[in-house]
Each structure stands twice: as C-alpha cells, then as structure tokens.
C-alpha cells in the first residue's frame, strides 16, 4: 500500500519542524510593545541639555518627597534651595527630573530675586519605583543637585483607561 505522503517524502520529522516554524511565526506578533520608558540614559541627556558642559555639584538643594508612595498618581513634592534670594545672588530656576516615567522631565520652575525663599511645592506622577532628581541653577551660573529614591507601589501614567 502506498501512503499519500510518500510522493513528497514528508516524514514525521519534517512535519514536526513545519509545525514548530508555524508556531514561532504566529507567536511573534503577540509580543506587545509597551510605551517607551525613559531610561537612565534619557535622564542623563535631559540633564546634559540643561547644564551643558557645566559641572553639577551635590548639595544646597533639598527634595522632600515620601520615600514610600502608595499611589504614584499623586505624590506630594517640595523642592527648596538653601540659598539667599538677593538681586546679586539668587536661584534662577529649579528643574525636576525622573528616571523611569515615559519622559524624563517633571517640571521647571523659574524664580526671581523677589521670591524671598527658593521653595516650590507641587504634586507629581511616578510610573515606577525610581530616582527623582532636582537641579537648581544659580544666578552665578553654577548648578546644584540632589537625587532621592522613591518606592512606588501603584504606578501612574501608563495604565489602561477604566
């Protein structure tokens, strides 16, 4: 008796190989693409855009943010700079960055000597457990920074709409 596969010389091994290829081909489109997450490299380049070639020193800046956050959708944050606000020497701007949200910027605050105190409070979103960085630019052109690690249990920004 002649089987119908014999003229093609299809063995069991061939069929198994074919089945494997088909499975792999159909599985590929199932790989979901999540929105691009900011990486530490993006954070570094965002900071580089701001400061250029200048050196960033650690200190002066204070970032008050809870170390453990339950809901990343609204995280209270206070940033302040220990520097006098006089017309000769003052804090020009404060820039807040993050490491793992979809984009590295959080906010830029532009101050004037009349502020009296270099301190700003707001509420931010954090998409993951990550590092938050604040950089202050002084009127003499120097940059000061601080970085704080925050643990987030419920992420913000990229979840599905209800």
């Amino acid at each position, binding site marked *: 008796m002649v089987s119908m596969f014999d003229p093609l010389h299809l063995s069991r091994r061939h069929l198994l190989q074919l089945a494997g290829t088909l499975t792999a081909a159909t599985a590929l489109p199932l790989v979901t693409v999540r929105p691009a997450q900011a990486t530490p490299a993006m954070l570094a380049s965002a900071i580089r855009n701001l400061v250029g070639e200048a050196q960033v020193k650690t200190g002066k800046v204070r970032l008050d943010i809870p170390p453990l956050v339950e809901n990343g959708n609204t995280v209270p944050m206070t940033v302040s700079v220990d520097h006098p606000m006089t017309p000769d020497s003052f804090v020009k701007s404060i820039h807040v960055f993050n490491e793992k*949200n979809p*984009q590295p910027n959080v906010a830029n605050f532009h101050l004037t000597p009349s502020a009296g105190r270099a301190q700003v409070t*707001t509420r931010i979103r954090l998409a993951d457990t990550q590092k938050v960085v604040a950089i202050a630019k002084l009127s003499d052109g120097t940059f000061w920074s601080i970085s704080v690690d925050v643990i987030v249990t419920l992420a*913000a920004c990229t979840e599905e709409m209800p």
Partner: protein
Amino acid sequence: MPAALVNVPPKARRGAVIEIKTLMSHVMEPGYRHTAAGEVVPRDIITSFTCRFNGAEIFRADLFPAIAANPFLSFFTTASESGKFEFEWIGDNGFVATASAAITVE
C-alpha cells in the same frame, strides 16, 4: 469652565515673605495611557503657569505630563507694595485660564 483656586494672604507687613498657593481643575491627561481597545488617549495637559505682580513676572513653571491631575503649585514672594497678583494657566487644545488676587501691604 475651568475652576481656579488661589490663596494669597489679604494683608502682609512690608518685606514679609508670603506663600501663594494655587490649584487648577484639569485632567492633565499624560498621553501615554491606552483605552481597553488599545488606542492611545491623546495628551491634554497644562504646559505653562505664570504669576505676575503688578504686571511683572514673579514666578513661572513649565509643566510636563508628570504633574498630577488638578495641578497644585505653591511658591513664595516678598510683599513689597500693595497690588494685584495675576495668575495664568496655558495648556493643550487652546486651554487658557486666569485668576487674580489683591494684597494690601502695610
């Protein structure tokens, strides 16, 4: 109609450092969220906040999607003279909102 809430002390001593608090109702849709059908929800945020005192800018903030819904901002200024604070929020899709508050400096 957007609802703004600003808190400025009505009276202050000359030279005192006062705190100004502002709250604006806004969804601040970050533009990174998806519907259950997989479509991206378009970005709709406030991008800029400015505070002027008697016409001169005293504080400005550039906001990004990482600012929580209903943006709250608190900052400081020195009470130098009596006058009027003007607040302005500008955002996506032509969003503009303003508010003002008066202060008496003694």
